[in-house]
């Protein structure tokens, strides 16, 4: 399945786009997704930390992702 990934803040700079598509198997987890993204965009690994949101909720590494999920890369936040 092809997963669409939204990017914000520095992640947008790293991807050079506000969204990227990643090809994954159906049983893929957040952890698998991070691995693939970090392989393709090594600068992502250099962030202090980053989170993945699935359908507007912070996701855990073990959560599985589905084709229609809204996935987003959440670099360290700095609002306020």
């Amino acid at each position, binding site marked *: 399945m092809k997963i669409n990934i*939204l990017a914000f*803040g520095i992640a947008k700079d790293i991807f050079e786009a506000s969204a990227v598509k990643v090809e994954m198997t159906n049983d893929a987890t957040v952890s698998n997704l991070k691995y693939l993204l970090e392989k393709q965009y090594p600068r992502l690994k250099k962030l202090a930390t980053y989170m993945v*949101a699935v359908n*507007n909720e912070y996701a855990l590494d073990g959560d599985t992702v589905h084709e229609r999920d809204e996935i*987003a890369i959440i670099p360290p936040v*700095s609002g306020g």
Partner: protein
Amino acid sequence: MNTNIQILPITLNAQECIGWVMSPECGGIDIFIGTVRNATKGKAILRLEFEAYEKMAISELEKIAQQAFEKWPAQRILIHHRTGVLQIGEIPVIIAVAAAHRDAAFEACRYIIDTLKQTVPIWKKEIFEDGEVWVAAHP
């Protein structure tokens, strides 16, 4: 409705925010207003830029407001956050909490801004004379 949570691309209005939280049952309102400082760690700032993952930011802010209501007897909570380019002195965030007594207003307001800075998907870019940086992105 006892919450008023918005992500806005236009100038925040403190007077309107205060007016919204006021009510005859409330004896105290605490308001936190963030403003754009002219320097960070001694380095002059030209302007800031805020970006939000809007839908999730609203949802996280609603969670924080609900947590505050569970922890303190507050009556009304307002959280407005700016996006876009902000000049020195402009207002990125206004939080207003009205409660019967001031304890709850102060504590809930403080909790909201502290938690907002930790969990809400909003990002700040600092623009300097010689470059720009997404805050907190690097160790």
